């Protein structure tokens, strides 16, 4: 077991949670991420692999929540897979074993910060931070969007009052600041 301890995206030992009366912003440090890109000529194999991992292949703009591996559509022939970091730290390698030459896998864990936002004011909150049509989105809808000039991924969870935001990890402080000040403005 190696001797290096990880830090969270916000630079702490433990992930950070901010609780307001109308909203909570929870840094989620528990996910491993890996990008899955189908190689040419292997599209059918990839569908089989993904079905095996997720149950259903996520279609355009959709996320599938499965246990232990979830996934969402990223682009044509490309998906992002997520899983609990504790059990699946080597997610990219694990899936590569499944798909072999059929897909290109790339570890993405370090590139993202994850915030789960929950609360009554969620819809108003989303309307302040990004142009995603949150009131029309269904559970599982996934949308790449811009939050305060940051390229983020927004997933509407099945529960009505919860979203997951993935943002660029190096800008975690800036993204958190944007979410925090927005929540304050709505308090």
């Amino acid at each position, binding site marked *: 077991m190696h001797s290096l301890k990880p830090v969270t995206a916000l630079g702490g030992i433990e992930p950070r949670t901010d609780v307001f009366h109308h909203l909570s912003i929870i840094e989620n440090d528990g996910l491993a991420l890996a990008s899955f890109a189908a190689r040419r000529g292997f599209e059918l194999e990839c569908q089989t692999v993904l079905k095996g991992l997720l149950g259903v292949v996520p279609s*355009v*703009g959709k996320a599938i929540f499965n246990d232990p591996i979830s996934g969402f559509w*990223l*682009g*044509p022939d490309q998906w992002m897979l997520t899983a609990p970091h504790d059990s699946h730290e080597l997610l990219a390698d694990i899936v590569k074993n499944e798909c072999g030459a059929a897909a290109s896998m790339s570890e993405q864990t370090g590139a993202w910060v994850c915030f789960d936002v929950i609360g009554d004011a969620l819809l108003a909150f989303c309307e302040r931070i990004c*142009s995603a049509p949150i009131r029309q989105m269904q559970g599982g809808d996934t949308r*790449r*969007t*811009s939050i305060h000039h940051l*390229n983020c991924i927004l997933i509407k969870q099945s529960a009505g009052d919860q979203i997951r935001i993935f943002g660029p990890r190096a800008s975690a402080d800036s993204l958190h600041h944007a979410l925090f000040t927005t929540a304050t403005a709505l308090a």
Partner: protein
Amino acid sequence: MIINHPLLGPRDSAEFIYLGDANLIDRPNWQAPTAAKDFYEYAYLRDNPAGWHDELWFHEAGDRSWLVVTRNTLTHEISNVALARDVARLRGRSK
């Protein structure tokens, strides 16, 4: 403007980066005897229509697809949006 992404539906053009004329897809053959002239025209000569224009947009804040958008430069009306990859294949850029 709103660009109707063929997969993702209507998106604010602010999510995209504009490159230029879609004729950039038609990159010349480097081994043609007229290659020097072909590449010069490809790199430098453009029509600049006041009207319909096929152009390349990159969905940088989205799915990273390149799109070919047919837009009227006078009215900003957009009549067609296609994945650049599909357009490239139609224009003979498959192997």
